[in-house]
């Protein structure tokens, strides 16, 4: 939404915006309550969600949070929380352009450098399963639209 507003301010420079160009604002305002509730739900249940993702991923592949003999649980949980928070903000503001520009493109290169795209793919697909179970269907749809991008960019090989 913020990116769209920025684009609008450039494109409508020196003239009035058309009804068509203003449509996104009305659409956003109609969805705002739902977005805010979803954001607050994610905020209040973050610890539980992350633990559930962690447990499920470990069941699917016990080695996901290890590299050889080193346990990376705390780093992975920290990163999962961070990515969930970024996704939640992008969902609230309906602005995945900014999420990609400020965070995901950078994070993608770092995940590739560490060679853990397959693990990211598993983690962020599982995160979508968990949100589907823990949130209302409409809330899950909102956040999973963003998490799907996180999974695609960080987990893409």
């Amino acid at each position, binding site marked *: 939404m913020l990116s769209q507003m920025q684009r609008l301010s450039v494109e409508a420079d020196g003239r009035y915006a058309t009804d068509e160009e203003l449509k996104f604002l009305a659409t956003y305002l109609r969805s705002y309550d739902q977005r805010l509730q979803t954001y607050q739900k994610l905020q209040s249940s973050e610890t539980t969600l992350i633990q559930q993702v962690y447990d499920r991923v470990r069941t699917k592949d016990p080695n996901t949070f290890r590299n050889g003999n080193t346990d990376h649980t705390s780093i992975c949980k920290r990163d999962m929380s961070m990515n969930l928070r970024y996704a939640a903000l992008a969902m609230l503001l309906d602005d995945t352009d900014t999420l990609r520009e400020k*965070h995901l493109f950078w994070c993608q290169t*770092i995940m590739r450098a560490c060679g853990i795209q397959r693990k990211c793919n598993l983690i962020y697909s599982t995160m979508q399963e968990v949100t589907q179970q823990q949130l209302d269907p409409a809330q899950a749809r909102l956040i999973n639209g963003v998490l799907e991008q996180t999974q695609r960019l960080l987990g893409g090989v």
Partner: protein
Amino acid sequence: MTVTLIHQSPAKRTNPKKHNHYGFQDFFQFDPDKGTIVDWNNSQNIMATEDFIIGLVEGLEEEVGTASAATMYTIGCEWGQKDAFFFEKWFEKEFDRPVRQTSLMFLLETWWWPFTAQGWGRWEVDLGDRRQGFMFINLFDSAVARTLGDVGKPVCFLYAGLFAGFFTEMVKKQLSCIEIQCYSMGETYCKFLLGGKERIDAAAFWMNEGATAKDIEKRLRSGELK
């Protein structure tokens, strides 16, 4: 007179240890009163147009003729060597660990991110042949090649020098670099070969004889010039 510039964007004030700071508004701080652009690592930046790049390349060609390629390469080398020292400092400050105790790929991606944010293009490093003493770097959206367009020959000498200078300093071993494929030759991206001087001279010779990037890769991988 030395002027110390300090980046103090809201993002840096709130979270100075933030690593994902390469968004346009986080990375650059514009000061319209002083007329400065300072990046996250307190380095002063200057915006340049494509006309500036054309002027630089063509002006140099007019002044020194065919030696302009070597001149650009040398400028790149010195820039890369200086940047290696600069990088070492900011990396250690940001990550609280020495560069030599860090995974190589992570280190390289971290080095290149400021260049990506500044518009020098995205890259991809192929370390697969590192043990054989050479490596390839793919560069997407080279600022020089994108500006000059399809001129039928490699043009990214500045980048080749930058890679040679930086890696020479990082591995403490004299390395050279050559662009073996360029967007300005009609390819979709630029490709650089980095290695010892003997290998790079051989690659230059093969290129003059008409070899493509694929031919050069094949010849090096088949063990020519061990």
